[in-house]
């Protein structure tokens, strides 16, 4: 198959019972084989919902429009059996908190060989166990044989996240969805897990959707980055380009408010205000209320246009000029 592994086009998702604004509003997203695509945004911007939509896992009360295809299968309209097979064979997900995703009463080995256990065939189980051993080794755990017999509480958070990654790889997925896989971990552990994910992705040629709220992390991991705000992808660009020359004021604001370990300045340029709640549904641009480039008569009235140039796109009526050196954004001149 030559098309992208994951393709979302104009996906809308509404939760009429809890939200006044759409939770996802026209999300476009593609992940190709061998590509790492980042999804960045603040809490509540819809990153997890997007990833779950790719698996066809939606809240029961959700109203969905648009197309989501994984490996050519339309997740939203295909028969349930096809979607289930997809989840078993083509896509896998790694979550933020490894402890939340594993039954604390069961051994690591049982967790990993769970689906083979369901078929009930001895041969499948043996094959699964062999594969689990191989993968525990591949994710860099020191003693795979022993880990199979251990319980989750006997492992540290970082080691457990490695187990979860091994579990995600059991079905040899072509697409890996990582939802903040390192947020609960220390920086050093985070660096290890990120390096591991990168290596596995390269070795196996997987497509990867990497969700994080840390722009620096996304830029160090991903090939391309989508920036989300209030359920919309407001900017999409190659990682370095996005970082060096953000075009959406929100992206620029995020960069400016991210503390940098190098670089000068003693003051961060914060974005004023707070992220849009689910109960607010402003007309015009969702970022207008916090934007320093807002044009009242335009931004507060019309939905912003998507400006695209083939490589990157930005959803803004007044995007930043293509050349704004990054250091000028990050710090204010202290006069």
């Amino acid at each position, binding site marked *: 198959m030559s098309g992208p592994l994951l393709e979302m086009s104009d996906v809308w998702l509404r939760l009429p019972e809890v939200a006044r604004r759409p939770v996802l509003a026209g999300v476009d997203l593609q992940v190709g084989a061998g590509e790492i695509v980042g999804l960045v945004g*603040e*809490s509540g911007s819809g990153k997890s919902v997007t990833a779950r939509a790719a698996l066809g896992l939606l809240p029961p009360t959700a109203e969905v429009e648009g197309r989501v295809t994984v490996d050519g299968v339309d997740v939203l309209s295909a028969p349930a059996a096809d979607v289930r097979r997809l989840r078993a064979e083509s896509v896998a997900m790694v979550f933020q908190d490894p402890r939340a995703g594993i039954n604390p009463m069961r051994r690591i080995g049982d967790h990993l060989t769970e689906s083979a256990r369901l078929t009930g065939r001895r041969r499948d189980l043996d094959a699964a166990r062999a594969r689990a051993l191989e993968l525990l080794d591949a*994710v*860099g*755990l*020191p003693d795979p044989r022993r880990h199979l017999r251990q319980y989750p509480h006997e*492992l*540290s*958070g*970082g*080691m457990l996240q490695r187990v979860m990654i091994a579990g995600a790889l059991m079905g040899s997925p072509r697409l890996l969805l990582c939802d903040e896989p390192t947020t*609960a*971990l*220390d*920086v*050093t*552990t*985070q*660096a*290890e897990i*990120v*390096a*591991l994910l*990168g*290596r596995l992705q390269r070795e196996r040629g997987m497509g990867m959707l990497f969700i994080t*709220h*840390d*722009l*620096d*992390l996304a*830029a*160090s*991991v991903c090939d391309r980055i989508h920036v989300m705000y209030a359920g919309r992808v407001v900017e999409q660009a190659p*990682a*370095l380009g996005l*970082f060096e020359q953000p075009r959406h004021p929100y992206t620029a*604001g*995020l960069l*400016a*408010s*991210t*503390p*940098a*370990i*190098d670089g000068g300045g*003693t*003051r*961060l*340029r*914060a*974005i*004023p205000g*707070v*992220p849009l*709640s689910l109960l607010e549904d402003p007309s015009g641009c969702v970022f207008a209320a*916090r934007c320093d480039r807002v044009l009242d008569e335009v931004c507060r009235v019309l939905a912003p246009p998507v400006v695209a140039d083939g490589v990157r796109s930005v959803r803004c009526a007044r995007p930043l000029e293509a050349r704004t050196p990054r250091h000028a954004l990050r710090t204010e001149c202290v006069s």
Partner: protein
Amino acid sequence: MSAPLLEVQHLRKTYRTHGSTVTAVAGVDLTLPEGGSVGIVGESGSGKSTTARMLVGLEAPDAGRVLVHGQEQVAQPRGRRERLARARALQIVFQDPYLSLDPRVPVGAAVDQAVRLHTRLTRSERRSRVLELLTQVGLGEREAALLPRRLSGGQRQRVAIARALAVEPDVLVLDEAVSALDVSVQAQVLNLLADIREQTGVGLVFISHDLAVVRYLCAETLVMRAGEVVERGATDRLLREPEHPYTRLLLSAVPRPGRRSEVDGGTALSGRGVPAPGR
């Protein structure tokens, strides 16, 4: 020469839990000059929170002393006078703004409780003092009437800061106080803290696992690991020329755009001493 604002000497704490003992803090020293700010960084379980809790008297140290303006702070204050004096020396802001406010008390009233406990202002004087404190952290009369659950995370953390400032402490301890916030809001709170330090001269002990955040607030930084201070010094120097291997490891692990991290899987893992408990 007069005594420094805060002086911490050889603070130690060991926990015993069914048989095994954990030395959470193994002798921390630190000195904070008048109006100064010091950062404490380190991985999970390195003893940062335990240090903070000992500073504010929530935990009794096994050994060591905490002095504010040369006055030794009692580990466990008894009686109203001792408690109030202890409170005015050091206040704390916790990590989770969702849990650190009483869910039943409107935020204005929460600040008012602290003002009432520590001053003898009349009702109307208190009202204006509460409003002044809330304004200082960027909140208004409208928010004052709301229960914590009606506020955003950033707003709640502002309330927690206002409530701590209501006591007019000499030193404010912030234990991962911006870690749970979104970056855009985190930046607002960091700027707010810098402003408050400038305006009130309160000393800051700023605890974080994020080296980059510490750089914006703290002139000096301590790096902790397994209960010990492994390196200390001016923050800029520490980030530019780290001396201790652990500081270097921490720095090299910070993600930087366009540069895939070099910390490799297997080796780094086996090289790490204590696996982070509870994470």
